[in-house]
């Protein structure tokens, strides 16, 4: 795109679009430091909502549940998703391949209300008590598909002859995978894990369907508070979550950039 110059029109459209994307978030962060209880009127700088947030036991318990679900489901999803990515890109034809790829890609576009309802009905039908584990299973299923997409795009783009060379030189398939393939696709696997982790951290709908008494996640807690009205503690909590995720994403992209430079 360099025949015509980057002009005023392009600059203006970028400025408008980025302000639209970032102003709401910046306002949210700004008002988390508002001394006034009224969320939309500025009453001076204060960090009291952060203090009261950390003293709020309900939020802390929910945060802990969410974190445990996200850690376990993201790790399970990364293993399963990486396996699925290898199946789709490396093992060739097998019976039911079409069904397999259909099942991998459909959860990506499936409305969450349907996935949530379907999983809940499954858990009821097999008599599994709803709680921490059912949320974890549900999140694993949803997020493994995202991992598959991320990892398989890396598997498609790298040179297969490296794997073939390892096999020719006497590696077993398993050790060729661990010694050659895995180090190359590791940045994609890490990116996939992070994506799965944040998706799980963020999910409200599927968690609401599959959770049981005593296993309220943070988004469920935020949702029930928001329905009651605006609340400065939610602003503080949101600011912390945004900060956490932004730092994570920036570190991840730096790591993967460095890994790419080393591989080239």
């Amino acid at each position, binding site marked *: 795109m360099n025949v015509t*110059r*980057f002009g005023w029109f392009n600059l203006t459209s970028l400025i408008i679009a980025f302000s639209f994307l970032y102003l709401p978030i910046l306002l949210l962060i700004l008002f988390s430091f508002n001394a006034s209880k009224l969320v*939309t009127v500025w009453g001076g700088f204060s960090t009291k909502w952060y203090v009261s947030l950390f003293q709020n036991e309900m939020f802390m318990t929910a945060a802990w549940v969410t974190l445990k679900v996200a850690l376990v489901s993201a790790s399970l999803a990364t293993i399963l998703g990486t396996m699925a990515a290898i199946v789709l890109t490396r093992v060739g034809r097998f019976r039911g391949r079409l069904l397999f790829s259909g*099942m991998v890609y459909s959860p990506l576009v499936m*409305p969450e*209300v349907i996935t949530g309802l*379907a999983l809940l009905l499954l858990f009821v039908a097999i008599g599994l008590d709803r709680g921490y584990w059912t949320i974890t*299973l549900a999140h694993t299923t949803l997020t493994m598909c995202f991992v598959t997409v991320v990892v398989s795009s890396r598997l498609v783009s790298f040179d297969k002859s490296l794997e073939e060379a390892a096999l020719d030189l006497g590696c077993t398939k398993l050790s060729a995978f661990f010694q050659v393939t895995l180090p190359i696709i590791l940045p994609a696997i890490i990116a996939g894990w992070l994506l799965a982790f944040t998706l799980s*951290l963020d999910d409200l709908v599927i968690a609401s369907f599959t959770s049981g008494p005593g296993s309220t996640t943070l988004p469920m807690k935020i949702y029930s508070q928001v329905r009651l009205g605006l609340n400065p503690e939610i602003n503080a909590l949101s600011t912390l*979550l945004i900060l956490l995720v932004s730092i994570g994403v920036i570190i991840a992209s730096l790591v993967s950039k460095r890994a790419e430079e080393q591989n080239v």
Partner: protein
Amino acid sequence: MQRQFDWGRFLLIAIPFLWLLIFFLLPFAIVVKISLSDAANALPPYIPTLNLSEGWSGITSFISQLDLESFAWLLDDKIYFLSYLNSLKIAFISTLLTLLIGYPMAYGLAKAPQRWRTVLLMLVILPFWTSFLIRVYAWIGILKPEGLLNMGLMSLGLIEQPLAIINTPTAVYIGIVYSYLPFLVLPLYATLEKLDQTLIEAALDLGCSPIQAFWKVTFPLSLPGVVAGCFLVFIPAMGEFVIPDLLGGSDTLMIGKTLWSEFFGNRDWPVASAVAVVLLLSLVVPIVIFQRMQERQREAEA
């Protein structure tokens, strides 16, 4: 040729395959089954339940009790039809609005100097990683009658009465455009960035003005990206729950919201399942078209 059964390959395929069969496909079969059942004051709240201990007669009596009553109910009560219609309308209009904002943005990104691009792309992706719920919540504080937008406009003297935006479809449009903008911009950017520059150069050499060259060359060639991006907005917007619930108020009907209240409010599992089945069927066509197109594009690139 390997004679021996390849256990490694078998397990590699079987483990994720089985997982998806149990946790993805089987649940849908159950949804269909329950949509054919009747609501009951029981635990679980539907009848019949399959009783395998009675053997064959248990199965036949189970099947004979299934009916289409829940689906008939969907036709009877206008609220369901209105929800579908309204979801279609809202998803369609917000997709168009997203395109209107997203196209100039993707175009600007593709033309931006190389050294800015990584940072700019990162800025497009970053909101996608931060919580959906939080981003929707941020708009409540802006759009409320005593919110920041109205306060700002009133202090500038542009309006005298606060605008009623929250709890109207307008707020839902804003929420959807805001949340799904990156989904449209990224595929569109990818298409625009790969565009063959010599074609535009040729158009300019042959006497096109830059604007003519855009409409005659750039835009038609970017259509695959436009369509892919629009599907990525339209499909999830159809089933959206959080945005209409938090920004749309009780008067904005959308099918995801209706399903939610049918399930959590009325505890009518069979009707909720029937709503899910119909929503799924209405999404099958766009999803299949979308996947076909993706495959065709992948083949064209290979």
